[in-house]
């Protein structure tokens, strides 16, 4: 009896919080499908006849899709390079025994604890001296550097736990290190690569700091920088603002619903940071 009552209380707590979580997301979604006046008249119900004008406007008559493409480009390239050079380094650091290896590992790890933003002033100067200010290409090396400490940490730990025999057999067969890397290590560490990819995807997709600092020119704006400008310009047109917010979040939310376990694992690991 007592057991059932605690269960009921637990359900009530979780339901109440779920409501608080879902309520803003719900209002964002349903109101993006309404005309301005309907939002103010009845903000919480699903519209009987959805109005897609806001979506049509944002997708066709604004640069939203361009910003989306810019972000995808940066995310894709950054993740690819981070995974490649991060796994190469992790492979070495997992097998290389010695003081130098330990030192390099600690050097990478120290980047997990220290927020990269504290180096912004000098990063700004470096990117500017490379002539990349205002350009998407300036973001990419900074994002790679930002993601590397976590990548090296996750991947090195994972490689160290792989069964040694697999690698030893290949070594005896005379396979080169590069061959072992591409034929044995990479296929085996796929789950860890997925974790690292998710951490970077979320960090970069959602970042506003560096696009703001690098003052990206209009054709190079990322999605979140675009959202900032849209929010400023459409401020009084709630339908458009909500459409922009919905479109900027929905891809990640859908991906999260599809693979929530991996997301939770990756983001929690990414947050723990060492």
């Amino acid at each position: 009896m007592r057991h059932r009552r605690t269960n009921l209380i637990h359900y009530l707590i979780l339901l109440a919080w779920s409501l608080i979580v879902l309520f803003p997301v719900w209002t964002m979604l349903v109101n993006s499908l309404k005309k301005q006046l309907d939002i103010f008249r009845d903000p919480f119900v699903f519209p009987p006849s959805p109005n897609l004008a806001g979506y049509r406007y944002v997708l066709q008559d604004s640069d939203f899709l361009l910003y989306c493409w810019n972000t995808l480009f940066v995310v894709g390239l950054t993740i690819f390079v981070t995974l490649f050079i991060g796994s190469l380094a992790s492979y070495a650091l997992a097998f290389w025994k010695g003081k130098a290896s330990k030192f390099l590992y600690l050097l990478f790890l120290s980047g997990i604890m220290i927020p990269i933003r504290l180096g912004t002033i000098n990063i700004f100067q470096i990117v500017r001296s490379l002539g990349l200010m205002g350009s998407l290409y300036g973001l990419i090396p900074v994002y790679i550097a930002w993601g590397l400490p976590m990548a090296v940490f996750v991947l090195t730990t994972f490689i160290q736990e792989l069964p040694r025999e697999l690698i030893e057999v290949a070594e005896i067969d005379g396979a080169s290190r590069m061959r072992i890397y591409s034929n044995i290590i990479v296929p085996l560490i796929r789950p860890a690569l997925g974790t690292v990819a998710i951490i970077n995807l979320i960090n970069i997709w959602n970042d506003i700091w560096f696009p703001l600092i690098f003052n990206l020119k209009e054709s190079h704006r990322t999605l979140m920088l675009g959202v900032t400008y849209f929010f400023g310009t459409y401020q009084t047109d709630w339908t458009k603002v909500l459409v922009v917010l919905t479109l900027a979040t929905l891809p990640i939310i859908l991906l999260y619903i599809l693979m929530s376990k991996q997301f939770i694992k990756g983001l929690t690991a990414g947050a723990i940071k060492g």
Partner: protein
Amino acid sequence: MAQAKRRFRKDHWFFFTIPALVIYVWFMAFPLFNSMRMSFYQGTGLIPTQFVGLQNYVELFTNPLFRDRLLGALKNTCILFAICMGIQNTLGLLFANILAGRLKGRSVFRTIIFLPATMSVLVTGFLWKLILNPHWGAVNQILVRFGLKQFEGYPWLGKPETAMIMVGLVTAWQWVGIPTMIFLAGFQGISEDVLEAASIDGASALQIFWKVKLPLLTPVIGLVAVMTFVGNFNAFDIVFAMTNARGAPEYSTDIMGTLFYRIGIAGQHPVAQPNMGVGASIATVIFFILFLGVSMWMYFRERGSRVQ
């Protein structure tokens, strides 16, 4: 001899680390170090070149233009930390305790609780700004519908008394999933035998929570606290979205991140030029605050494990 030979192999391990090392040092490790060095320099060009010793720090701590803002930002960041510890992490502990049980549908709740952590802070901030809108926002409409007429048109983000609290609550709303998952892993690590033994001894669920689970969870609580601390002293986006980079109203939501941005990068009223030297000294101050926090955590963790 064999060792010397191995050390100079053409595929020495070191070569594998070079690409990652170059980018990491070039764009992160070196700039972090160099930004600190720059806190001893002044100048109007792209890179401050004139060595001024501790002058930037003297400016920061004594010039009222900087000092008042620094103290204000420190205070507001501490308020943010207090709200995150008191609400976000306490709720996280509560949710984790519930989710560690055998409740049906717990994976659905887990997915929902964690959902905001995948959203952009910027989007979250803008969304809540709309919801907190004094005239059209849902929060005031709901309060009025429940008969709380005094909140009709109340500008939550426009009043210095409530703005920072709102920013803190939205931060807690967004990130509660992370401590929940960390605490959940902690609860699942507690052995069944211990809990069973306590239960057989006649301890109530509440007693087991306070006397058995919580003490065993102390290291995890420390970890969550230090993570929250680092996150809060690194925060910027939420204030940028909900109020603005000037920490409106009247600097009541100005935190360390926005202060650093304004002075070091964007330029602050009444001087529209960024002051990179003072900006770098703010970054260094933040670094030392974080360093202090993390060291304290490590010290207590060491001591705690020695006692056990």
